[in-house]
């Protein structure tokens, strides 16, 4: 006998079934389309932005993230539950589509049935398992949400509706199957291919056929009605993320990662700079708010939030959404606290983990731009002083620009003014130039290059701050002035390759300066030295030592450079004990986003929290790759009273101690 089942069994395949069914479906889809059209109007309040270029890449990003749930799976527990639920539900959706395809299309018009034989058995089994997994995962997530309740997880009416409706749909589906099987498949081998349905069927085995038929028919219509409601309310509830988050993958920022759009300072027409109102943002910024599912992964990882500052990247995105929907003319910084905006270290932990590819950081930078460029406001007077120092002396520390190259005295390095025939330009940056502790990094790097036979030049007093802290603080104007002067120097000397020791300089020169016309190869010293090591030009004698390693935000998350520093550490003989938060999950030192210029006077100290994490590894040395991080750890370790057990060091210092000599 050929395995199969009668589609529309018991409910009938006549007009009495099909007309109301299709009518309801049509109404549901019409409501869905209408409500989404209204939401699209909300997004359209934003400024234009081209996010439909490079379509093949965009589509593949969407497929990867929707079907494979790649970003969702970055968090194991709930991520896996969501992915399994999604796959289960998606398979059920496909199964329903196949039924529709056969019953109301191929069979109806061409007499072709494909849900039969071995394929039907497979179909039946897979759908049963998919449904079971979906129910189990949904129950698991329900328990997590209402019983376990991780801190920060907020429950709204949406969550109850969603869990309730989905469970009702899934369970009623199995009951319908069970009741049908109790009538048509009891005792057959076919029933074994629907194990869950069979289990349910056994519960109903004692009922008489008339009762079963009546129950089946009622449940079938009930199940249909639930599905209709589900479809219709998608745009009204967090269910909308099925579409908005998928769309967000399609319209995702394809990079370069973490690039901040360059403002046109010469634009005579521009009346305002930065973001004050939602109409100053792009449509994608407003779609972002709708793509948010309140999963709070960003908030969990935000160094500001976890040290009791008023910044939650999730809440900012949601506040933007609320204003866009309810009161689009309300100034954003009425609803959003200024201290929240100023607290951001632009560490990108929020954006890296966000399963909806929401772009938090640039929204914050754009709001800062408005405060700085239009209002002349800063988080504190110390920041304004740092800006003025930079205007006058080209560094936020306010030290005489003419002494910028003094650290290099006696070292095998030339200024390009003396001799521009060099292999690389070492762009030193402000902290390695002026800060006593960080000058050790600059000296170490020169010695390492010298040992590898690399001729290094610096700009000395002709170098200016790269402008990164000012830019991330919102001062685009000052950044562009610094950048223009630096780029002019690079071009004057015909520089071919730049190496930096500061990841902030690296990221800025390598990405942001491109917009302003820089076209030179730029590397961070960790990658540059790893290459010299591999080529055999740099020789390091390993000496065993215990350490832990801090992935700086601008080398790690911004540039995905995780391996080169670890290769160098291994070559130096490091016994590396990783902190729990490492690589893409690394926890900021607190100095990014221009916060290096600002006092940290809300909540507890981020640097101390990170020092604590490093101390928990038991390693006596905390290695970093960034002058900002080193500065913060010097303070943070003392602040957390860990200086007896933990010492901060830059990777370059470790290497120079081990130069084969």
């Amino acid at each position, binding site marked *: 006998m050929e395995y199969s089942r009668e589609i529309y069994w018991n409910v009938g395949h006549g007009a009495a079934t099909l007309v109301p069914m299709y009518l309801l479906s049509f109404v549901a889809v019409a409501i869905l389309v209408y409500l989404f059209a209204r939401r699209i109007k909300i997004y359209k309040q934003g400024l234009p932005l081209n996010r439909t270029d490079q379509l093949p890449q965009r589509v593949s990003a969407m497929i990867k993230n929707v079907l494979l749930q790649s970003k969702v799976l970055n968090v194991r527990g709930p991520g896996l539950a969501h992915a399994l639920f999604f796959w289960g539900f998606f398979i059920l959706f496909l199964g329903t589509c196949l039924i529709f395809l056969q019953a109301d299309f191929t069979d109806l018009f061409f007499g072709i049935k494909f849900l039969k034989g071995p394929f039907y058995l497979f179909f039946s089994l897979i759908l049963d398992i998919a449904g079971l997994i979906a129910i189990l995962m949904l129950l698991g997530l329900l328990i997590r949400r209402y019983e376990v309740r991780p801190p920060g997880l907020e429950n709204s009416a949406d969550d109850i509706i969603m869990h309730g409706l989905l469970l009702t749909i899934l369970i009623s589906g199995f009951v319908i199957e069970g009741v049908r099987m109790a009538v048509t498949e009891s005792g057959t081998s076919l029933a074994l291919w629907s194990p869950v349905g069979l289990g349910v069927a056994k519960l109903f085995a004692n009922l008489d056929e008339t009762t079963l038929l009546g129950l089946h028919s009622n449940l079938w219509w009930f199940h249909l009605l639930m599905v209709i409601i589900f479809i219709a309310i998608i745009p009204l509830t967090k269910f909308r993320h099925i579409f908005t988050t998928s769309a967000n993958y399609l319209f995702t920022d394809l990079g370069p990662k973490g690039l901040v759009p360059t403002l046109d*300072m010469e634009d005579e027409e521009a*009346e305002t*700079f930065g973001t004050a109102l939602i109409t100053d943002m792009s449509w994608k910024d407003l779609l972002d708010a709708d793509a948010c599912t309140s999963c709070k992964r960003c908030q969990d990882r935000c160094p500001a939030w976890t040290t009791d500052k008023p910044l939650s990247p999730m809440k900012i995105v949601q506040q933007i959404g609320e204003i866009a929907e309810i009161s689009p003319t309300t100034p954003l910084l009425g609803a959003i606290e200024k201290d929240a905006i100023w607290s951001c270290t632009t560490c990108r932990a929020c954006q890296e983990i966000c399963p909806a590819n929401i772009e938090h950081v640039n929204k914050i930078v754009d709001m800062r731009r408005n405060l*700085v*460029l*239009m*209002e*002349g*406001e*800063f988080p504190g*007077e110390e920041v*304004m002083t740092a*800006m*003025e120092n930079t*205007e*006058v*002396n*080209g560094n936020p520390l*306010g*030290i*005489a*620009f*003419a*002494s910028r190259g003094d650290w290099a005295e006696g070292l095998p390095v030339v200024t390009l003014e003396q001799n521009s025939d060099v292999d690389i330009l070492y762009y030193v940056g402000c902290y390695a130039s002026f800060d006593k502790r960080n000058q050790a990094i600059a000296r170490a790097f020169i010695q390492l290059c010298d040992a590898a036979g690399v001729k290094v030049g610096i700009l000395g*007093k002709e170098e200016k701050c790269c402008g990164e802290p000012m830019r991330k603080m919102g001062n685009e*104007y000052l950044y562009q002035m610094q950048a223009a002067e630096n780029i002019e120097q690079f071009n004057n000397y015909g520089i071919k390759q730049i190496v930096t020791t500061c990841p902030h300089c690296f990221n800025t020169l390598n990405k942001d300066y491109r917009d302003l016309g820089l076209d030179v190869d730029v590397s961070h010293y960790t990658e540059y030295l790893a290459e010299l090591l591999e080529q055999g030009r740099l020789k390091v004698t390993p000496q065993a030592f215990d350490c832990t390693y801090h992935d700086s935000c601008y080398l790690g998350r911004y540039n995905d450079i995780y391996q080169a520093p670890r290769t160098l550490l291994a070559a130096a003989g490091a016994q590396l004990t990783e902190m729990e938060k490492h690589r893409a999950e690394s926890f900021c030192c607190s100095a990014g986003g221009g916060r290096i210029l600002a006092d940290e006077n809300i909540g507890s100290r981020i640097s101390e929290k990170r020092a604590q994490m490093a101390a928990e590894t038991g390693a006596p040395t905390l290695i970093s790759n960034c002058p900002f991080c080193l500065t913060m750890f010097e303070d943070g370790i003392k602040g957390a009273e860990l200086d007896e057990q933990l010492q901060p060091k830059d990777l370059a210092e470790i290497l120079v101690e081990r130069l084969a000599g």
Partner: protein
Amino acid sequence: MKILVCIKQVPDMESRFKVNAAGNWYEETDLAWRMNEYDEYAVEQAVQLKQQVGDADLTVLCIGSDRVKETMKKALAMGCDRGFHIADDDSYLKDPFAIATLIAAYAKEQSFDLIFTGMQSQDRGSGQVGVLVAEMLGIPSLTTLVEFSYADGTVNAKRELEGGIKAKVSCATPALVTCQLGLNTPRYPTLPNIMKAKKKEMISTPVADLNPEASLLEVLQVTPPEKKGGGLILEGDPADLADQLIKLLKEKTTALA
């Protein structure tokens, strides 16, 4: 209301100073330039006054080479309406009296209601230019202000005196005031104002046109301060500190001999 604010461009005090070849001032290479700190308070107060009275015209005046125009632009970006530049490459050789006569010559023609200056310059520090200008114009001057208010032709102010004492003073305009640290927090120019400043009127007049008078003072020689021995910080508990101090006094001085 017509307001004048006089500013000076000075080297950043963090710069490394060298005495020039003539030995009478500092060498200008490798210096970073900025607005004299006290003049920033003057500009800020003048701009606040302009905003308060509404119908006011605020001129910023500066004497020096073309280089000083950069600093004037900052004052324009902070809110001054127009710039009057007295072009003089050798202004550093003029004493406070000669500088004051130039300002007075210009101000006399313009009949300003109120003139703001810094209390002193960070590089020469004579503290005389403001009061000399007032004398030359025959108007009252209030110096070292830490509080300022204006209403109906009267200035009410607080002056900082020695030893933390403050004096309340008032006078009728026209008048001249000199501004001290603590008077206000100078604003950071906004981008639209920086852009507008680029288009504001800036008149540059050769110093010769203002009939400069000869200086009364001449700088004979400028030298860096003598290098003195470094200080010594003793550490420890009080008893130990006392012992250390007695030991030092015995060994290094004749105080206990």
